């Protein structure tokens, strides 16, 4: 699954570390999601969308 997490993170001037702490996940997970190597669970995807005040479909899209 592709995602625009890196774009949203950059738009909000966030480091991977800061985003990881705010989402309560590891920095490695943020990196893995950004590189499309890990698809987050539904609850985490909702959490990310809520964090950036947008919808899941805006951040995540099917391959």
């Amino acid at each position: 699954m592709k995602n625009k997490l890196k774009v949203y993170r950059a738009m909000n001037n966030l480091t991977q570390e800061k985003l990881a702490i705010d989402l309560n996940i590891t920095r490695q997970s943020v990196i893995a999601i950004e590189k499309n190597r890990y698809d987050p669970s539904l609850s985490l995807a909702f959490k990310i969308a809520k964090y950036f005040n947008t919808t899941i479909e805006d951040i995540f899209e099917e391959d």
Partner: protein
Amino acid sequence: MNSKSVGIITIVLSICANLLWILGVIDENFLMFIASIILAVIGLLIIFKNYNEAEEFFTNIRGKKIEDERSLKIKEKAAIASQGSFLAILIYLVIGFVTLRSLNPVFLNSAYLLIAIIILQIVLLIIAKIFYKKKYGN
């Protein structure tokens, strides 16, 4: 003591205690066995006295999360893969030992032992599956 010192001392004591225990068993040396217990008790006392520092070292460090859904998934996959590989290796060993049974009776006895271990592992796997099936719904 700060959390890093407590963590490092605990890890070193734990490694030494385990090594002494193993060497004591191999060498049939009761003094090594007693020394390992003493080291383990010292380690436990250090943790007890510096519990907050030990917890900080071994869990979250300055707000950094060590474990999340991804790391748990990695652990789960690694455990399944290693269990499957271990079972396969055991089965091949049993076949090898049974094939070589005419060379030495030890091979046949070893094969029986390995078969018992394989059965135990399969039973544990079934129990774990039933447990988690009930926990997460059918």
